[in-house]
């Protein structure tokens, strides 16, 4: 196991001392033993013991992996991944157009970022998802629980009650129409109190609390293994003002992104983040772009941008590993996120309103 000393997860000062003393591979460290090590580099025996334990763990981990067990590494062939993906569920949003462009709904094990101007409906969508993740499997949901981390204070419980009651009613209608046994059984546990008690709410006031909460989340998730959705409403808010050191901000954000990806992968849950928009002033025009800079754009796997077009709300899928870029319209009603319901007659006319880039072909035909 010729693992170089520079690649082992030890403290940097310790690594520097080991390099200065001439140790190159992990095997040499293990051969020297704790007493020899503490004499060579001038550290205490306890520190030498700890360092050797770390080295031994790494090397044993390597050996176990080499022997063929997949154990802790996440190694598999693309075929196995394909089978896994095909059996994975999606979290639906109750707006079928949005579900279509997302490829079925919000995907588990991926980070989805929702960007938008104020008031366009980001928090509404998050609350809708926190309710929808709990839909039982027989109705097409994933039957999971939700974690809601709020940094802006925009979580309104009364609104969640409205959305949840509408969802329960919808499921009742389906059950009555289809009259199946498992539907009725599932409905017994799918009630308003149940839904609300399975949304775990955390309030973080600044970036330190947010980082701490995210780093403590894996422990929480291993206790509550049914969680399938983690929502962070307002990831931009704590990082946008009062941050003098921008390189520190980039580092913290990237570390946060990696931690969220680990959470999404290990616990098979979807992570949904909301971001704000900022203006980029170009040479001749200014455009709205998602906040937190270029490097943050790489953190999310799927990016959804919500925007206005006159009085119509639109959603654009901007970045996705498997779906094409497209734009759809949606409505926010008292029941939550819903499709725009175009009446059949004027469908083509509304089509042109929704998509101003297209030539108004139907209007010409009418004329």
């Amino acid at each position, binding site marked *: *196991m*010729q*693992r*170089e000393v*520079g*690649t082992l997860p030890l403290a*940097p000062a310790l*690594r520097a001392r080991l*390099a200065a*003393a*001439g140790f*190159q591979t992990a095997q*040499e460290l293990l051969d020297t033993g704790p007493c020899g090590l503490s004499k060579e580099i001038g550290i205490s025996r306890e520190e030498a013991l700890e360092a050797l334990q770390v080295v031994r763990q*790494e090397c044993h981990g*390597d050996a176990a992996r*080499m022997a063929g067990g997949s154990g802790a*590494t*996440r*190694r*598999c*062939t*693309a*075929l196995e*991944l*394909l089978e*896994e*993906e*095909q059996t994975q569920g999606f979290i639906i949003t109750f707006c079928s157009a949005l579900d279509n462009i997302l490829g079925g709904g919000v995907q588990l*094990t991926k*980070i989805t970022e929702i960007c938008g101007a104020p008031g366009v409906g980001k928090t509404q969508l998050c609350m809708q998802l926190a309710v929808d993740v709990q839909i039982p499997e027989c109705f097409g949901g994933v039957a999971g629980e939700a974690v809601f981390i709020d940094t802006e204070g925009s979580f309104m419980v009364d609104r969640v009650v409205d959305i949840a009651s509408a969802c329960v009613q919808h499921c009742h209608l389906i059950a009555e129409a289809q009259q199946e046994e498992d539907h009725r059984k599932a409905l017994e546990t799918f009630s308003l109190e149940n839904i609300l008690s399975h949304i775990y709410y955390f309030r973080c006031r600044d970036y330190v609390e947010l980082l701490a909460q995210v780093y403590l989340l894996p422990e929480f998730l291993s206790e509550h293994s049914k969680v399938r959705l983690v929502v962070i409403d307002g990831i931009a808010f704590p990082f946008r003002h009062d941050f003098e050191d921008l*390189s520190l901000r*980039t*580092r913290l954000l*990237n*570390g946060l992104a*990696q931690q969220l*990806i*680990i959470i*999404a*992968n290990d616990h098979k849950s979807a992570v949904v983040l909301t971001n704000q928009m900022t203006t*980029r*002033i*170009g040479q001749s025009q200014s*455009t709205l*772009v998602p906040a937190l*800079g*270029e*490097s943050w754009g*790489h*953190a999310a*796997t799927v*990016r959804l941008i919500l925007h206005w077009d006159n009085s119509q709300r639109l959603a654009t899928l*901007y*970045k996705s*590993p*498997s779906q*094409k*870029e497209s*734009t759809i319209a949606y409505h926010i009603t008292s029941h939550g996120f819903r499709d725009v319901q175009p009446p059949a007659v004027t469908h083509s006319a509304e089509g042109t309103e929704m998509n101003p*880039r297209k030539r108004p072909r139907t209007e010409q035909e009418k004329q």
Partner: protein
Amino acid sequence: MVVLRAGLCPGLTEDMIQLLRANGIRTVVDFVSSDLEDVAQKCSLSYKALVAVRRVLLAQFSAFPANGADLYEELKSSTAILPTGSPSLDQLLDSGLYTGEVTELMGVPGTGKTQVCLAIAASVSLGLKQHVVFLDSTGGFTASRLYQMLRAQTEDEEEQAILGRLRLCFVPQLEALQRIQVVRVFSIYELLSALQELRDRLSQQVVSSMGPLKMVVLDSVSAVIYPLLGGRQSEGLALMMQLSRELKTLAREFSLAVVVTNQVTRDSSTGPLKPALGRSWSFVPSTRVLLEGKGATWQKGTTQRVASLAKSPRQPTGIQVELDIG
């Protein structure tokens, strides 16, 4: 800088080492660069023995010069050029990805770096029937999209239709999927240990599930290094250089093509785009390709992309081709 130990070479005994250490000579470098007559006097060791030890140590630890003609012959026999599956990209890369080198793809978020990586992996696995290792650090690997690309790449549609009736049609694509191994690494230490494990497996030639490996794709390198760079700690730079050494050794020793994706940043909010990870990383890849969308903003959706060559040892930089990642 290897520490002198007994048994490192035949003439080196434990007592010799103790005597040398008492005089401040602890590593091979110290030994080889010191004046042996002086050392022989101070440590009261035989000069002949010291010279013999030095000769053996030099033979063991120094690099041998190779002649240019031999190097060329070796390159001709061991380098392969892997077509990427997209003729315009091949044209940009001078007929394909060269093994033994690191190629980098960079771009703003959403320009399709992961898509191009998936397309290249699909083409190598399906067309050339070679194994590919895909190291995913962003969680962006979607097997269903890869499967879609594989289905699209199977050329003969008639054959597909006929075989489809016999239900044999999807077998080559499923085999191609089995040849692509995906490893999820989300931190720099996991990445380094995955690369180390790969190196061990290749050098011991464990044939079990790894057939002839020709390509390693790392998507993306900046995601794992960004949390460590900057500030007053130089540890991030050290780890980045360790990583670059591992990638280059893998590429050269085992004749693999290594493809890496990187981000781009701006100096200020309106400055020009430049590749991330700084100047130190810019020496690592031999070829760099920048991907851009044709429309500048997210308001116009399109699947057209423009790839331009930013650094290449063989072609003039600045060439641009158009790609369709649909």
